[in-house]
């Protein structure tokens, strides 16, 4: 269900890439309210979408477009941490190594889904696609600047530790945490397991809600 778009196969995925940039605009600019310098209206692309960038995308045939994607950049090339946020890494230096890539623009358009199982499967697919690309290409670590809410999730999915203390930018109360996650086969197996059991995982998570509704009905 996911596509891995590398510099080598990029020509084949021109339409998917176009759809991805449009989806990124919908989520990052319209929904999250980010101000991204240089972005064209309706199309989010910046200086870190480079010739080295790899994208993992998830297309939903029901919508006929990309609904989730992420961007991976090698840390031996210019990347977000080296170019923009080096000073955020005040607990340990950000790694710049062949086996460490940077993940950014981890985007899922959650407004499209009323069915929590379907949304959960989209999320699982994006995570699996990203982890799989890393494992197949000798990438053992991913660095990212994570939103506080997402940082909690990264800690629970990947073995993750912070590179710096939480930072709050002047115009936002939300904290950002630079982080480094280990990528391994065990994580990929867990992700696949969660996707295979998506119905029961989500049902378990929804349990309290249904108990509450039943008690009201009674």
């Amino acid at each position, binding site marked *: 269900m996911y596509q891995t778009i590398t510099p080598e196969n990029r020509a084949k995925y021109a339409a998917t890439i176009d759809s991805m940039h449009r989806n990124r605009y919908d989520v990052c600019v319209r929904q999250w309210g980010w101000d991204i310098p240089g972005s064209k209206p309706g199309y989010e692309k910046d200086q870190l979408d480079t010739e080295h960038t790899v994208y993992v995308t998830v297309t939903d045939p029901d919508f006929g477009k990309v609904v989730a994607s992420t961007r991976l950049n090698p840390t031996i090339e210019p990347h977000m941490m080296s170019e923009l946020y080096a000073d955020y890494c005040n607990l340990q230096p950000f790694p710049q190594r062949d086996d460490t890539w940077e993940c950014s623009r981890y985007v899922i358009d959650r*407004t499209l889904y009323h069915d929590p199982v379907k949304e959960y499967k989209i999320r699982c697919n994006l995570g699996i696609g990203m982890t799989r690309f890393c494992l197949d290409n000798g990438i053992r670590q991913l660095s990212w600047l994570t939103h506080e809410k997402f940082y909690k999730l990264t800690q*629970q999915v990947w073995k993750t530790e912070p590179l710096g203390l939480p930072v709050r930018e002047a115009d936002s109360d939300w904290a950002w945490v630079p982080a480094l996650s280990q990528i391994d086969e065990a994580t990929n197996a867990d992700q696949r397991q969660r996707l295979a059991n998506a119905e029961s995982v989500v049902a378990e*998570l929804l349990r309290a809600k249904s108990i509450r509704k039943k008690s009201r009905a009674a």
Partner: protein
Amino acid sequence: MILNNSAHVLGAIRGIQEAEKPDEVMRIFTPYVERYGFAHIHLGQLVNPANIAKKDILSISTWPGELMSQRAEKYDLLHDPVALGALRSKRPFRWQKAMEWATRRGQRVIDQTRDFGIRDGYVFPVHSIDSVSGAVSLGGDQLDLSRTELAEVELVSLAAYARLETLLGPFPYQKIEDLTAREAEVIQFAAAGKTNRDIATILSIQPDTVNKTILRAALKLGTLNRAHTVATAIAKNMIFA
């Protein structure tokens, strides 16, 4: 520049992440926060105790048992200005800040905690993509933390919370669905005391449509009636107070 205290912070986080049992997490977390002057830990998910049993949520406390029993008996969480602030705030804040929005009952909740010798503290809100919000509330006496120290405690608190949630969970998923623009608009007018007929006139729609919109919003928010829906929408920052 790497902070002097970085090894200490990372050591605590790595230890917490490797802990296999909740008490191992607490054996690392407790002495860590003690170094910053915190003697009492209370952490957990912030849900309505009238709706969900405590056994179904993450809840760990080193507060005196008697205080906890008293709080549970009277559903004090619903009035606790620190807890209510943590639901809304994205930043850590000092307990005394919560007195700004405390009701009279809320002030009594704070006073009751002080009666047990827990006089000062900070709360570190924990927000998630999947789960209900929670908080790590740390109590002490005469606390004086720098901004960096506060961030150090915040980061280790987030690690402890995430690890405990993983070890003790899964806990109930309670995604609060977003209201549509129309639902928010209708609830906003209901919050201003307008009747369905008033709202229908203002928005040029049928009163029946207003009613259905409110019911749909109530279903999303899991609320019981109009007042409950308005109050919940305000508490979740979905409409203006």
